[in-house]
């Protein structure tokens, strides 16, 4: 038989060990050696306070009663952690940028640093957590009772009560010592975190030890264990859909919303990167914790006498098998589960109570002198210590009142569903900028009320808090308000019923009220910062130009942060502004930063209120919000401008490049032009000179003389034409051309051109559509005719077809009159198309054409001068030119 005193001794030794661990951790962090204290292992292990005595003892009881349903409680958090990229990462980032101290602070801060919401969440958390703390006390005393009974001592209820009280007192001392050392929650509680990490290892080790003992020591291996399960009362697995899904949802939500979970998950997190490890390591921890639950339950049901409490199988099984060492280890595991939960939950709640209830009331009671007199720091610490005591006292009183009879799992679920009422406001606040404090408040109140009515109060049993008559007929005989059949819908599982209605009405109220009401500027600012937390590097400013004096602010900051920290903060700020000493300029940015520092100690709402007193309420306004938005817009515009500028530079560079190429080409062209022109002039000159030499120097026959004179005449004509063309081109190019504007029919101009080119008498047949040509044009008709003549005679000259044809089409395209000249010849090769309008460009040998290659160049110059254009039209089956008449000068004939 185990000595009961040995158990007490081991427990005390264990507690002393925890104190030592916590002290050592605090000392290390005080020396600045926080490296491994912030490691992902410690973080993951600290998350295990999710597994309380409810898991350690209660899961086995749950499995014994309802089979595999207990797994849902661990599957929910698994989902949250493997889905950390969605939500947990965002919460942690928000927690760090906003220096959140608790879940109440999150809600309060998100919704415009609302004090009321902070109080609401705090109250909700206390109501939801107190039974849970009672549950831990109960499980510890029950397990002590088991040992007492097995060692032959008879324990009266009075003894159990006093044991519970001593446990509560011990926990209060531990929490006060290690939880209220640092005021700034962001200095983090290394002592507590390390202690609960150690406890996490102990409880996992203990539960697995019992599990291994049960599977391999009693049942005889994995196969036989599974057989045993299939032969037990829980052999059939019939999950109820509503409960299965609902429980996964509730446990996932509670994992995020439980004050203690928020404390370790967000507040104590010092580095986002540890989340990556926790995302798989914590699910693995949960897996190991739940792995042996079913075997222990089944073997317990098999071996333990009828009527024994399955909640205590973890301790009673080893005891009944005579494994006292294992039983003590198991007891320590349960003790660890219970104590770590109570410590962190109490700490988190105390922070909430002091930041959202006590300090604001204290400040209010002492206005207006609050800031100038009294040490806030002391007030905060004392209020936190008192809160810790009060909360543990609540837990103890609840334990006494409830009598410790209810099954553990039921209390746990009631508590979970209570805190999950915060979930809509939390998720909405983090993902939906439209969420506002009215909506959050409405959702919280509605959800809280429905939960209390359908779940919390009925959990005391029929005739407990609610009389049987009300269960059956509703309050005051209002049937549709029956606590387990709201709106007359009966037959739902009470848990699913309560969960469905509370969450549905909560979310609906939250969203509808948010949609209908309008947030204040601070809320909108905070909303933007929370929802877009990954886009903001630091908090946007919440203050406009302020009337506060740096010295006043320093005085206040010293009272909250402590002298040295506050002075260091101010000095750093002054230095960054380029000033010496401790008093920086009071800029809105500085006030915003200071407020965040302070909120790490006393919560966002209180910090905001305190700064507000000094700055005389010159808080952010809608105009400031818009100004902030404008600044952003300006920055974006600036970067857009830069982008546009660089694009423009690129364009300019390209244009320069092109111009350069053109210049080079032009200079080449100029050389070519000069050589061309001299060539063109010299050829006729040469023949004129030689023939006139012959005529002068020798006797020539009459017929030959006539022929030579004819050649001279011909060549001088050609020379004259060339000079005329050159002169014409010169005039046109210099832009000094005289235009004789007149009005006439396009058909007439074309007629003249056809006749003048002499094409009508030649081989070329010209196809025209007289109907389309009846257009009045106002332009220099002679010049236009000159262009047409040129094009027609070109066709006559170059069209290589057997039966050369020229089709002249007049039509209107996009409101402009165009005249197309298309022949049926070979056309112009693609590579030459760009050259034909250049001077002296000829495609074939010059002899055939007899022209100097200036015609098309002149055409283009003329059309340019007239305000139109002439281009080569590819793909028409032959050479094709399109003359576009100037728009304003083309008039309809009618």
């Amino acid at each position, binding site marked *: 038989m185990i000595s009961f005193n040995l158990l007490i001794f081991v427990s005390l030794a264990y507690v002393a060990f925890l104190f030592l661990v916590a002290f050592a951790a605090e000392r290390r962090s005080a020396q600045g050696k926080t490296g491994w204290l912030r490691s992902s292992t410690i973080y993951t292990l600290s998350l295990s306070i999710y597994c309380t005595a409810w898991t350690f003892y209660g899961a086995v009881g749950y499995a014994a009663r309802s089979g*595999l349903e207990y797994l849902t409680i661990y*599957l929910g958090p*698994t*989902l949250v952690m493997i889905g950390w990229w969605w939500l947990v990462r965002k919460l942690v980032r928000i927690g760090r940028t906003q220096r959140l101290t608790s879940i109440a602070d999150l809600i309060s801060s998100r919704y415009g640093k609302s004090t009321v919401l902070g109080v609401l969440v705090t109250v909700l958390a206390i109501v939801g957590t107190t039974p849970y703390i009672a549950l831990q006390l109960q499980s510890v005393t029950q397990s002590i009772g088991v040992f007492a009974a097995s060692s032959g001592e008879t324990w009266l209820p009075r003894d159990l009560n006093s044991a519970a009280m001593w446990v509560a007192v011990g926990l209060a001392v531990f929490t006060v010592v290690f939880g209220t050392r640092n005021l700034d929650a962001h200095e983090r509680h290394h002592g507590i975190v390390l202690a609960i990490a150690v406890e996490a290892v102990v409880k996992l080790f203990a539960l697995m030890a019992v599990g291994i003992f049960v599977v391999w020591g009693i049942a005889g291996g994995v196969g036989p264990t599974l057989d045993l399960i299939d032969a037990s009362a829980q052999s059939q*697995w019939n999950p109820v859909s509503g409960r299965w899904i609902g429980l996964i949802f509730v446990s996932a939500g509670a994992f995020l919303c439980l004050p203690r979970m928020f404390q370790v998950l967000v507040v104590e997190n010092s580095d986002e990167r540890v989340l990556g490890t926790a*995302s*798989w390591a914590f699910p693995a921890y949960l897996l190991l914790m739940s792995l042996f639950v079913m075997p222990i339950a089944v073997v317990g049901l098999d071996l333990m006498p009828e009527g024994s409490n399955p909640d205590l199988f973890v301790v009673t099984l080893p005891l009944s098998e005579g494994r006292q060492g294992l039983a003590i280890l198991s007891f320590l595991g349960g003790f660890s589960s219970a104590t770590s939960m109570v410590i962190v939950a109490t700490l988190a709640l105390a922070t909430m109570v002091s930041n959202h209830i006590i300090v604001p009331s204290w400040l209010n009671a002492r206005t207006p002198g609050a800031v100038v007199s009294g040490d806030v720091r002391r007030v905060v610490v004392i209020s936190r210590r008192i809160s810790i005591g009060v909360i543990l006292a609540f837990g103890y009183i609840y334990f006494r009142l409830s009598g410790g009879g209810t099954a553990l799992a039921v209390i746990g679920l009631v508590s979970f569903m209570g805190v999950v009422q915060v979930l809509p406001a939390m998720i909405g606040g983090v993902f939906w900028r439209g969420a506002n404090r009215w909506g959050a408040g409405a959702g919280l109140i509605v959800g809280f009320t429905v939960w209390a009515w359908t779940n919390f109060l009925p959990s005391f049993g029929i005739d407990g808090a609610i009389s049987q008559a009300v269960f059956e007929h509703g309050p005051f005989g209002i049937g549709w308000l029956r606590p387990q059949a709201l709106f007359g819908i009966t037959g739902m599982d009470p848990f699913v019923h309560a969960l469905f209605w509370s969450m549905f009405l909560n979310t609906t109220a939250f969203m509808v009220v948010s949609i209908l009401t309008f947030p204040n500027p601070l809320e909108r600012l905070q909303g933007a910062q929370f929802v877009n937390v990954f886009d903001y590097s630091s908090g946007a400013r919440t203050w406009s130009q302020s009337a506060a004096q740096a010295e006043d602010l320093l005085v206040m900051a010293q009272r909250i942060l402590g002298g040295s920290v506050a002075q260091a903060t101010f000095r750093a700020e002054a230095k960054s502004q380029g000033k010496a000493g401790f008093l920086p300029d009071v800029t809105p940015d500085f006030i915003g930063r200071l407020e965040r520092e302070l909120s790490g100690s006393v919560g966002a709402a209180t910090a905001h209120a305190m700064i507000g007193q000094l700055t005389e309420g010159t808080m952010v306004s809608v105009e400031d919000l818009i100004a902030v938005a404008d600044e*952003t817009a300006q920055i*974006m515009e600036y970067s857009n401008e830069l982008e546009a500028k660089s694009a423009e530079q690129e364009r300019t560079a390209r244009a320069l490049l092109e111009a350069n190429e053109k210049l080079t080409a032009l200079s080449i062209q100029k050389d070519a032009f000069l050589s061309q022109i001299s060539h063109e002039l010299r050829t006729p000159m040469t023949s004129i000179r030689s023939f006139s030499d012959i005529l002068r120097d020798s006797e020539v026959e009459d017929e030959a003389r006539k022929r030579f004179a004819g050649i001279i005449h011909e060549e001088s004509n050609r020379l004259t034409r060339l000079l005329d063309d050159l002169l014409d081109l010169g005039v046109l190019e210099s832009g000094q051309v005289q235009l004789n504007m007149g009005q006439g029919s396009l058909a007439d101009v074309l007629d003249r051109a056809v006749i003048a080119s002499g094409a009508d008498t030649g081989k070329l047949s010209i196809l025209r559509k007289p109907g389309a040509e009846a257009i009045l044009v106002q332009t220099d008709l002679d010049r236009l005719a000159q262009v047409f003549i040129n094009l027609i005679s070109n066709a006559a000259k170059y069209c290589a077809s057997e039966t050369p044809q020229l089709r002249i089409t007049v039509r209107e395209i996009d409101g402009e009159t165009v005249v197309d000249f298309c022949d049926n010849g070979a056309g112009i090769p693609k590579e030459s198309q760009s050259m034909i309008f250049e001077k002296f460009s000829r495609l074939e040998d010059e002899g055939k054409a007899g022209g100097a290659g200036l015609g098309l160049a002149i055409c283009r110059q003329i059309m340019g001068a007239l305000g139109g254009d002439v281009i080569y039209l590819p793909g028409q089956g032959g050479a094709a030119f399109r003359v576009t008449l100037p728009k304003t000068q083309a008039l309809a004939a009618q």
Partner: protein
Amino acid sequence: MIKSKRAEFLERSSYRQRRIRDGARLLPIVALVLMILPLMWPRNSPEQNQTSDGIIYIFGLWIFLVFVSLFLSRVLRFSDPSRDEEARIPRGGE
């Protein structure tokens, strides 16, 4: 308010990071579906309905999820370089 302009096309490694993040977002959804899948199992006879099958399925799924999550956490990088660079421009000095 500040929606830093993000690059539309990324180099190969950044692209892979984005897809890994998509995977990290997808995982809990798939996990949830797999967790509620047993609700749809046929349960016509006691043999189809054994608790031991449920244990094997759920814990098998759990182990699978742990390993997928382990893999993702190993390959996921926290900061997105393509985004941070651009975010730095409008921010200026802090």
